[in-house]
C-alpha cells in the first residue's frame, strides 16, 4: 500500500480495507454451506440478486429454499411467474394421500404417503403467485410489490423472456427497495448485465450428476458486498423418485 493510502486508512479507520465490511441484513436460504458464502449469511435485503444458469440448471430449487425460509420467518413472499410453470414442491414431491371420503387408492399404485424426511408444506397463505401476460406486465407487477415494501422476498422468474429488464428499470426498483427489507431475486438463463447494473449478488447455478447422486453447484459470480469468491456443491437430500 502506498504511503498516501496508509495515511488515509490511519486517519479514517472506517475506510474500506477489505476486512471490515458494514453489517449486512440478509435473508438466509437455510443451507449453511451456501449461506456461509453469501454476505451477511444470505441474500442481502434491500438489494437485487440474480440466479442464472442453464435451463433446468437448479435455479428454481435454490429459489424455493429462499421462499421457504422467508415464509418460515413469517414474511410474505411473492413469485412473479412469467413462464407460468411454478408449482409448490409438495404438490408433486412426496406423494399425496387421498383425503377422507375420496376413492380408494387406484389399483397398482404405490402407497401415496409422503416419505420420511419430506419437507413440510409451504405456508401458502402468505405466498402470492402473479402470472403476468408479458414482460412489461411482469416488471410493473414487481414495481407494485417492491414499492409496497411489505414482501420479504419478490421473485421474478424471467425464464424464457424475450429480453432483459432495462438498466433504468433496475435502477428504479433498486432504489425502491434500498431502505426496505425486500430481497428482489431475478431468475434467468443468462446474466442481466447492463452498464451500471444495481444487481448486488449474482450466483451461477448448475446441476451436476455425480456418483454420489445429484448435486447443485453454486458459484458466486458477483458480490458487491464482499470479494466474489467461492463455490459450493450442495447434494439433494432425497434423490429418490418422486411419488406420482
Amino acid at each position, binding site marked *: 500500500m502506498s504511503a498516501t493510502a496508509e495515511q488515509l486508512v490511519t486517519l479514517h479507520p472506517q475506510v474500506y480495507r477489505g476486512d471490515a465490511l458494514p453489517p449486512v441484513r440478509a435473508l438466509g436460504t437455510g443451507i449453511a454451506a451456501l449461506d456461509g458464502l453469501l454476505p451477511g449469511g444470505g441474500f442481502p435485503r434491500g438489494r437485487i440478486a440474480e440466479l442464472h444458469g442453464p435451463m433446468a*440448471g437448479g435455479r428454481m430449487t435454490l429459489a424455493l429454499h429462499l421462499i421457504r425460509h422467508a415464509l418460515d420467518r*413469517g414474511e410474505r413472499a411473492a413469485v412473479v411467474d412469467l413462464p407460468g410453470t411454478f408449482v409448490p*414442491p409438495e404438490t408433486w414431491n412426496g406423494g399425496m394421500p387421498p383425503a377422507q371420503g375420496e376413492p380408494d387408492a387406484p389399483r397398482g399404485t404405490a402407497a401415496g404417503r409422503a416419505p420420511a424426511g419430506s419437507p413440510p408444506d409451504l405456508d401458502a397463505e402468505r405466498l402470492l403467485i402473479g402470472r403476468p401476460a408479458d414482460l412489461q406486465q411482469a416488471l410493473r407487477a414487481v414495481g*407494485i*410489490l417492491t414499492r409496497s415494501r411489505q414482501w420479504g422476498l419478490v421473485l421474478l422468474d424471467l425464464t424464457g423472456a424475450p429480453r432483459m429488464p432495462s438498466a433504468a428499470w433496475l435502477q428504479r426498483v433498486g432504489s425502491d427497495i434500498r431502505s426496505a427489507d425486500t430481497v428482489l431475486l431475478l431468475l434467468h438463463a443468462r446474466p442481466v448485465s447492463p452498464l451500471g447494473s444495481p444487481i448486488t449478488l449474482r450466483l451461477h447455478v448448475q446441476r451436476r450428476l455425480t456418483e454420489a447422486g445429484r448435486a447443485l453447484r453454486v458459484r458466486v459470480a458477483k458480490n458487491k458486498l464482499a470479494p466474489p469468491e467461492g463455490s459450493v*456443491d450442495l*447434494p439433494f437430500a432425497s434423490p429418490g423418485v418422486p411419488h406420482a
Partner: protein
Amino acid sequence: MPENSTPPLPFAPSTPPATSTAVPTGTPLRRVACVRIPAPHLAFYLRARRGAALPPTALLDEAGLVRAASREARQAGVEPGMTRKQAEAMAPHVRFDALDPHAEAAEWERLALLLGRFSPTVEKAEEAGVFYLDAHGLGRLYPSLREYLAHIRFTLQGEGYQPRVAVAGSRFAARAATHLNEIHVVPPGRDPVALAPLPLALLPLSPGLRETFAALGLRALGDLTAIPVAELEARFGREGIEAVRLAQGEDPTPLRPFATPELAAVELALDGPLEQGDAVRFLLANLANRLIDILNRRGLACEEARLVLRLDDRSEQTLAIEPAAPTLSARLLADLAFLALERNPLPAPILHARLEAARAGAAAPDQRVLFVERGDPDRAELAVARLRNLLGDEAVLRPRRVAAWRPEQRVRWEEYQERRLPPRDPSSFRRPREGRTAGTFTSRSAVESDADGAGRFLRDEGLRLCAPPLPVQVRVDAGGRPVWCQSAWAWGPLARVEGPERIGGDWWSTPYERDYYRIDWPGGAGAWIFLDRLANAWYLHGIYD
C-alpha cells in the same frame, strides 16, 4: 361428540365437567347463560387506562353522586350514592373522576356484538355489564356447557375484563349463579338447590318487602323457598309469589335479542357531473372519512362497504368494497374504492355518491393492532388490489394442495386474498446461522464443510410442471425402461433412470394408466416423464430446475 374437539384452555377447570352438565341436544330444556362483569363501571374505567395501577378512585355520575368506588376508596369509607362533598369528607385523598355514559354504552354494545359469536340470541341487559345468551342446542359445537362458558370467559378476558359466567334454567337463575363461581353450570332442574345459599338481596324486591323479609330473619333465597307458598301468598300477595318463584329459579321472561345498530351511510350530491379521474379520489376520501368517523364512534369497524353512484345518464352503479379484515382506516377504504372504480370504468360522469357500511363488526381493541402482523397489512392489501387491477383476478393466485392422485390435479389455484393472519410464534422461526460472513469456501463439498449436519442438503427440489404434458421421443431397452430421450431442451442417452412409479384409476370417467420415471442426462439436467400405457405414448410432465 369427541371430548377433545376443542383445545384446552389455560384456565380450564381442574374438575372434569359433570355428565349432567353436558349440553342437552334436542331436549326442550331451556338453558340461559349469563355473563356478568363485576363492578362494570370500574372495569370499563380500568380497561380504558390499560389496567394501570390506580390510586383510590371514585366515579361520579352526571348528578355528581358516587356511582362506583374502588376497593381502597370503599375501605376509606366512600360508598356509592354519596355526594362528592360527603365522599371528600370521608376520604380526602380519594381521586374523583366522571363516568362517560356514552362511551360505556358503546362498549357494552360492542361486547354484545362480540358475544354474538357464541349464541344466535344475545341480550344486553339494562344493568351495565350483564348479558344473557341462549345456550340451548349448542351441543354440536361444544362438548360441555362448562367448556362453552370457558370460551366466552376467555374471549372477554382477551378484551380486558374478568367476567363471571354461568348457565341455568332461567335468566334470574343464571344471573344469580354468577355469584357462585367464575364459571358455574347449574344442572337442569337443580336451580332451587343451587340458588338456595345465595343472599336474598339478589331478588328484585320493593324496599318495603325487603325490609319485611329482613325483619323476619330471611337472609338467603333458600330461606324464602322453605316457606309454604300458600302462607307467602296469604301474607304478601302477588309480590310474595313472584319472589318465591324467582328464588326457585322460575323466570319466564324471554330473552330480548340485541338488535345490531343501524349501519352507517354517508352521501354527497355533486354540483355538476364529475368525470372519472383523480378528482374522484377526493370525493371518495371525503365519504370514507365520514363513514369511518361514524363507525368509530359506535365502536364498530367496517367489514364490507358499498359504493352506490348515480350517474349522469340516470343509471346507477354499485360496487362492493371488502377489506381483508374489519378496518377503521378511511384511507384504505378510499383507496380500495378507487381501485374498484379503476377496474369498473363508469359509462358516464358521477352526479351523486353514497358510501354505506354493508357489514360492520366489533372493532379490535387498539392495543391489539400493534401485534396483528409484521409490516403494514393495509399497504399489502392495497398492493394486492393494484396487482389485481394490473393482471386480473385470475392471475393473482395462491396455491392450495388438493388430495388427488393425478399430479396435475394436486394443486388448485385460488384467488389470493391478503388476510390478517395471527402473529407467528417467534419461537417457531428458524434461527439464522450465526458467525457467517463473506465466504472463503472454494469448491468444497457441502457435506465436508458442515460437520454438524445442519443445512447440509437441499430439501426442496424445483420442478416446472408442463401443463399439459408434452410429447417426447423415448427409446427403451428390452425391459421397457427408457435409455434415450429427446425433449425440447435436452436429448441423448440417459445417465440415470429411476422408476417406474405406476398410477392408474378413474376407470369410471376418464381412465388413465401411467408409468412415471425420473430421468437424468449426463450433464445433470433432469426430467419427469411418463408412459401413457393406454395410448402407448411418452410424455414430459416436468423439468427439474
